[in-house]
């Protein structure tokens, strides 16, 4: 008994260009995302030539909520509860840039204790964001074990955040003029030190299973290469810029909070490929843990955690003098900045947030994807550490 397709059927199928005939053209369009874990609700339209990407078009906007418009309609303090949603894995960064900008316009000198707490919170946010990134990256290249570990270790930091701020992911903690709550006590500081030491002890395991891994090297070496000039012209910041050999770190070049007093190193590599980006990130995680240790050695200064200002009595109607300010911090994604314009009323006139992914998530991504293999697309996405809410806002 033969299983051959009858001749008529085959001809019919050929007429309709169906599966029995070989595909006439090699190029096709592929809609990558938003329903893909690597993209995190972000879509790329790929024009494929066989297995190679011929052209990529980035289609963001799935997470656009119009923050900048909404921020114009809410009082200054209330905006904290809104703007932190711009960067979900690292929600303290938008809080801090907005607070810094407002502090500068008002001319407040933030109390030392608040500065210390803010620095600690930012560093903790960085470590938890690295953990999140390790998880995403590990999953993309198929090393799920590292992802499982990282997600579990991140929970320890989440717990500490919960005790300090009262929220797990959205902390709503840093406000203009200080922070909202004091440190819960010495027990919390001890727990933080324990957590830092715990994660530090686990770094070796991460090295063994993920960063030293043969598979990581094979998947990332020579994939998505940028050069220095290209990166600067495209305003790539953060670890992606350091991976092409520019030692630009906001914490060093435009220091804020306690960073001038802290001792840490800026890792720089020259290759500019995905592997360099991965290794730079790994080294920065180590440095962040080191910074947290230094901060804990320093200990929180005594004093108030919120600026003392009689104007703060009426919080909903708190007015800010006219002016504008730009503040930026180093997040794990890159240089995160906010430009706040005030016209003297109780609501900001304009808030503009610069998400780092705006520069490396659109044009750079489109350029890097050109000529990449389909399997490398998630790797490039993850090593650029693209965060779609930054682009959309």
């Amino acid at each position, binding site marked *: 008994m033969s299983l051959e397709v009858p001749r008529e059927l085959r001809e019919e199928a050929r007429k309709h260009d169906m599966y029995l005939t070989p595909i006439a053209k090699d190029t096709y369009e592929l809609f990558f995302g938003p329903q893909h874990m690597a993209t995190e609700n972000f879509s790329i339209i790929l024009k494929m030539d066989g297995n190679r990407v011929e052209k990529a078009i980035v289609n963001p906007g799935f997470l656009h909520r119009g923050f900048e418009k909404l921020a114009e309609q*809410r*009082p200054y*303090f*209330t*905006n*904290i*509860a*809104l703007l932190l949603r711009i960067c979900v894995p690292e929600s303290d960064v938008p809080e801090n840039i907005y607070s810094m900008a407002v502090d500068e316009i008002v001319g407040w000198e933030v109390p030392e204790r608040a500065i210390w707490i803010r620095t600690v919170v930012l560093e903790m946010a960085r470590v938890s964001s690295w953990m999140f990134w390790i998880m995403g990256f590990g999953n993309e290249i198929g090393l799920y*074990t590292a992802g499982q*570990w990282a997600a*579990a270790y991140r*929970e320890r930091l989440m*717990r500490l955040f*919960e*005790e300090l701020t*009262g*929220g797990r992911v*959205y902390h*709503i903690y840093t406000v203009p003029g200080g922070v*909202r*709550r004091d440190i*819960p006590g010495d027990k919390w500081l001890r727990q933080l030190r324990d957590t830092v030491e715990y994660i530090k002890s686990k770094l070796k*395991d991460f*090295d*063994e*299973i993920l*960063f*030293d*891994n*043969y*598979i*990581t*090297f094979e998947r990332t070496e020579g994939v998505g290469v940028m050069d220095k000039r290209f990166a600067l012209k495209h305003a790539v910041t953060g670890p992606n810029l350091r991976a092409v050999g520019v*030692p630009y*770190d906001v914490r*060093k*070049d435009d*220091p804020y909070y306690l960073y*001038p007093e802290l*001792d*840490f*190193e*800026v*890792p*720089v*590599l*020259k290759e500019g490929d995905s592997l360099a980006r991965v*290794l*730079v990130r*790994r*080294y920065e995680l180590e440095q962040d843990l080191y910074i947290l240790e230094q901060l804990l050695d320093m200990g929180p200064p005594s004093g108030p955690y919120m600026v003392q200002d009689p104007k703060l009595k009426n*919080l*909903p*109607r708190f007015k800010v003098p006219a002016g504008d300010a730009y503040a930026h911090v180093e997040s794990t994604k890159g240089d995160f900045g906010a430009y706040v314009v005030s016209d003297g009323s109780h609501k900001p006139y304009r808030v503009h947030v610069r998400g780092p992914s705006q520069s490396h998530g659109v044009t750079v991504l489109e350029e890097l994807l050109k000529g990449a293999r389909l399997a490398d697309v998630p790797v490039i996405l993850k090593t650029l550490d693209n965060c779609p809410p930054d682009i959309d806002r």
Partner: protein
Amino acid sequence: MTMPARVVGEEKVKLKKSFVKPWIGIKYLFKKPVTIKIPFEKIEPAPKYRGFHTLDWKKCVGCNFCGQICPARAIEMTWLEVEGKMEKRPHPKIDYGRCTFCQFCVDVCPTGALGFTESYILTTDGTEDALELFNWVPIHPDKVRELNEAYGDYRFPVVRIEKLGDGTYRYHLRNGEVFEFKILGYGIRPPKKPTPAKPATEATANKETTKPAEKKESKPAEKKE
């Protein structure tokens, strides 16, 4: 002044690829798992976790500071009547379909009437009746704490809000207690004597007519066990 940027290059950052090292991860097979087996094990939220609100009706002065600071405009001042007596001041009614749990309202409350507990679980089927639970006037903190301690979990203290005609709401608490009050009107100014037509109730009435009629009635969550 600023420290000179300490830049480290390849010599410290670069790693060597290895085929053997990843196998060391196998040692984790023999370690205790980090999993919290949730229906059987419990995890407590942090002591001051920002959960559902509580309101001391005696202390509340109806200043509407909470309504002004709310980023989601979830708070609506409500004039209430308990057992035939109208409350002297309006009380906040909080919509959990809007609330972001930032607790700025608690921070600005001048008398400390508005507070919060660590309760955070409110699971409903999305029917119209069940969503009444999302829009409530918070109850006294002691009551919420008592219920939490009695049941040992962090659920919403009310299992069902029954909406009778003429604006009467009946709260069925978790332990079977019933608590009833009447909503006279919304806003900061007291309502006029014959209760005026309320825009909010009209809106919900319209909604009900447009919804498909097939939706089933909600069942109280108590029936689970």
